Structure formats: C-alpha cells, structure tokens
C-alpha cells in the first residue's frame, strides 16, 4: 500500500495516440497528474478531451503510447490484475439474467471469494447504496437510478481502494442525479476511497470534488487543475454559496480557454 505522502495514481508525460484511417489522433498529450489517497478527483471537459481515455488508461483498458503511469506503485495492468480498483460505467450494465445480489457477487465469484463471504459482502454494499431488500430483484425490475446504485455496489463489493467512475450519472435525470450525488459523497466519507470521476456537468464536478481536472481536446490534455476550497461536509444547498459559484466560474473559464485555442 502507498504511504500517505506517495500518490496513489501518478501520471507523467503521458501520451496516447490512436492510429486511424484519417491519420493519428492524439487522445492524450503530455498529461501529468498526481492523485493522493482519499482524493475525490473529477475530470471535466468537452467530448474528445480524453477524460474517459485517461480513466481507461488508469484502469489498464487502454495502453498509453508514451510516458509513465502508476497505480498503487504498479503498472495499470498489474493493478488491474491485483483488482486495485472498481469501475463504474456510464450505463449500469447489470446482467439481466442475474438478480441484483448475484450481479454484485459477480466480481466476487470471478475473484474466488468464499460463498459465505460473498453473501456478507453483498449485504454490506447493498446497505451502503441504500438498496437493502432489493437483492432478489432483477435489474429490469428497478429504476435507472437504482440500477446505477447497484452497479456502484458491484464496484464496491471487493474492497478496492480506488473507484473509477465514467459519467456514472450521465444518463439519469437531474433530480435522481442530485440524490445520487449526495449519496456518493456520504459513501466516500464513510469508505475513505480514492475516487476518479468523469463528468461533463460543472455543478456535479464542483459539488463532488476535492480536485477538479479541466481538460481540453485536440490534443487531449489537462488545461487546469483546481483544488476545491469547499468543506468536506456538503449539503446540497452549498451550491448556492459564493464559494461554490466562484469555483464553478473558474472551471467554466478553464473550459472556455480550452475551446479558444480550438478555433
């Protein structure tokens, strides 16, 4: 395990170039970032800025073409094999032929946890995402928001220290999203996980994060890193505070700057 002063995720001079029919596409260029234990980092930017690609690099789902990237002092691929992180996708992606409980125990089965341990863990994470009692339901019997909560429970089930979330609430309506944001903050406070969160919503990024990474496209790169000054305890109405609006303003400026040299 990384010492408190060592970053959990560390990227420097990271490049990723896709070769396509229309020539090379620079998805990531010269990306450098350190993420420490317990951070809640949001990645925000227009589509094509590489925020999802960066998350996938951390997860070992994409291979960078240059630079270094370490996760828990391992390569991303080693970290993936060591099951260092839980990944939440934009869609819940629950298997319709498994009940919610069996969906959550899917990673546990693959990783070879004992049957009794599986059941206990499922119960615990169901409680964490406030789905106690829904374990026997099938995914299609649940609302979109509940499905997404179940998929977060699935990512939490095997106690990885890192949670990678790729626009997990992007497909949900605003009211459900607010509720889930609140729940996610509570969950983060209780579990002390390191969370990397991709979003295209400025209020969401500001509300959730301790650190906001603003990215811009062509080539995908980091244009600003904003340390949040908001307190850890954040009720929903913090979004009307001047401090919140101030940070949101900085994020918006960063995004606009990224767009400016796009023209």
């Amino acid at each position, binding site marked *: 395990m990384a010492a408190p002063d060592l970053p959990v995720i560390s990227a420097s001079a990271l490049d990723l170039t896709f070769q396509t029919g229309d020539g090379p596409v620079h998805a990531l260029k010269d990306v450098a970032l350190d993420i420490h234990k317990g951070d809640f980092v949001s990645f925000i930017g227009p589509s094509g800025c590489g925020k999802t690609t960066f998350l*996938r690099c951390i*997860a*070992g*789902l994409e291979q960078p073409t240059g630079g270094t990237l370490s996760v828990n002092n391992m390569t991303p691929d080693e970290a*993936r*094999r*060591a*099951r260092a*992180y*839980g*990944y939440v*996708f*934009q*869609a819940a*992606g629950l*298997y*319709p*032929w498994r009940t919610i409980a069996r969906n959550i125990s*899917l*990673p546990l*089965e*693959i*990783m070879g946890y004992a049957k009794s341990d599986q059941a206990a863990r499922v119960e615990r994470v169901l409680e964490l995402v406030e789905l106690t009692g829904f374990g026997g339901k*099938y995914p*299609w019997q649940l609302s979109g928001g509940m499905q997404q909560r179940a998929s977060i429970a699935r990512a939490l089930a095997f106690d990885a220290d890192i949670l990678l979330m790729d626009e997990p609430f992007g497909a949900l309506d605003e009211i459900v999203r607010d509720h889930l944001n609140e729940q996610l903050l509570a969950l983060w406070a209780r579990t002390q996980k390191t969370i990397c969160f991709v979003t295209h919503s400025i209020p969401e990024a500001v509300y959730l994060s301790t650190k906001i990474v603003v990215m811009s496209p062509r080539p995908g790169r980091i244009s600003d890193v904003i340390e949040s000054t908001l307190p850890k305890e954040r009720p929903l109405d913090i979004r009307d505070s001047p401090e919140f609006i101030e940070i949101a303003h900085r994020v918006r400026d960063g995004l606009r700057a990224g767009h400016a040299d796009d023209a």
Partner: protein
Amino acid sequence: MIYLVVALAIWLALWALNTRLANGPSADTRVVSLAIPLIFGATLLIIWELVVRGLNVPLVILPPPSLIAQTFASQTAILWADFVQTFIKGALTGYVIGCAAAFLTAILVDRYALLKAGLLPVGNFMAALPIVGTAPILVMWFGFDWHSKAAVVVVMVFFPMLINTVAGLAETTAMQRDLMRTYGASYTQTLAKLRLPVAMPFIFNGLKISTTLALVGAIVAEFFGSPTLGMGFRISTSVGQLALDMVWAEIVVAALAGSAFYGIIAAIERGVTFWHPSQRT
C-alpha cells in the same frame, strides 16, 4: 349438393363468429386469442369433410378428415413404431449430436479469429444449400437403418446452429467485456459468466430452427432407402399403394411431433432466457 350448401353456410357462420370475436372487446384475452385460430382450424376441417363428401372426391385424391382420424386411431401401433424409428432414433439422435457438435465448433471458431474469418462465411453459405441432398450419400455410407438418418440430421442442423451460436457469442457489448477485464477475468470466466448467457437467445433460435430441420432430414432420408418402417418409408410406400389415409395419418404424426418438439424447446427457452426483453411480458 346439400353438403356444399351446408359447407358454405358453416363457413359464413363461423367466419362471422370469428369476426365478432376478433373485433369484440375481449379479443385480446388469452381464451379468445386461442379460440379464434381453433375455430378457424375447425372450420377448415368441417369444410374439408363436407366438400369431400359432397363432391364425392375419390379417396386416392383426398380422404376426408374423419377417415384420417379413423386410420390414425386404428393404426396406432404402426404409427408409434414409425415414430420411434424416425423421430426418436433418427431425428432426435442426430439433433443432439449435430447441435452439440455445432456448439463446440462455434466456441472454437469464436476463439480463433482466423477460423471465424474463414469458416463463418463458408458456414453461412452451407446453411443456404439444399443439404438434404446429401441424404443418398449418407444412406450409402451408414446403411439403411436409423444411423444414416441421424447422420443426415447432423449435417442439416449443424450449420444453422453454428451460425446462430457464433452470432450469439459475438453479441456482448464493449462495456460488458471491459467490465470483465476490470475484474481481471480469465477467458473461461468471461465465457461462462458473460458470453454464454448473452448468447442463449441466439442458441435457442438455432435449436428451434433445427427442430424442424431434424424432422425434415429424418423423413426425407428415408425416401432414399430405409428398413420397412419409419415415417418417410410409410409415406412413400403408402403413396405408392394409394393409401392416402395412411399418408395423412403419418403427416398428422409428423405435425404433432414437429410442433411438440418445437414447443418443448421454446418452453425451455422461456425458462432459460426469462430475462430477455422478448420473453418478458
């Protein structure tokens, strides 16, 4: 003449009844949706009976349903023996072997990109061919008894089953595969926990198509030589003797066996793929 008038009257009456049922308020209830096609089927049978009697159609052209039913009832021993020979021994054996072989081949094909690129187009091509034409060759190789019929069935069901299974195994989304990769899942784990469940609706589609093909293969193969029993044998010899009531009785057996076989596979499918949108009600 009177028969024809009665036939016409019954046709009009039952069709009017069906029209009322179909456009009535309870048309979509289970009972009525079942009753309408049954009434229609019964109408056809009654018309058939009356027209055959009314026009004195010779038995060698079209026997009336009542005679077919009589023959069916009085010849159950022969029909049962033919059923065992053709369906249980020939069609069912071939179906199990053919589908299992195709399933295993599909998993191999899916594993190796080269096989997929090469074998799949060939399989697609084969599935459209009149494979039943291999019957004379296979009868020559495996003899007149049910073994050759099973062999024909194996060849007939293999390609549709192969294509459907391979298509099903390719059905996972990128996100589902990524999820398994984030768990560091092995090939077999991904196969067992993700790809096979996703493929099930396709596999069952192949299994359902194959039920009909299996019966067709087993019956037609008997036209190329068989021991002195079997549904195909009975049909071709009874046609030769102009005993059309027997032919029709065998066709009834074939129809019952075919739809029961299909129905059983469809019922298993409902149990296995209850989660699929097409099965949810």
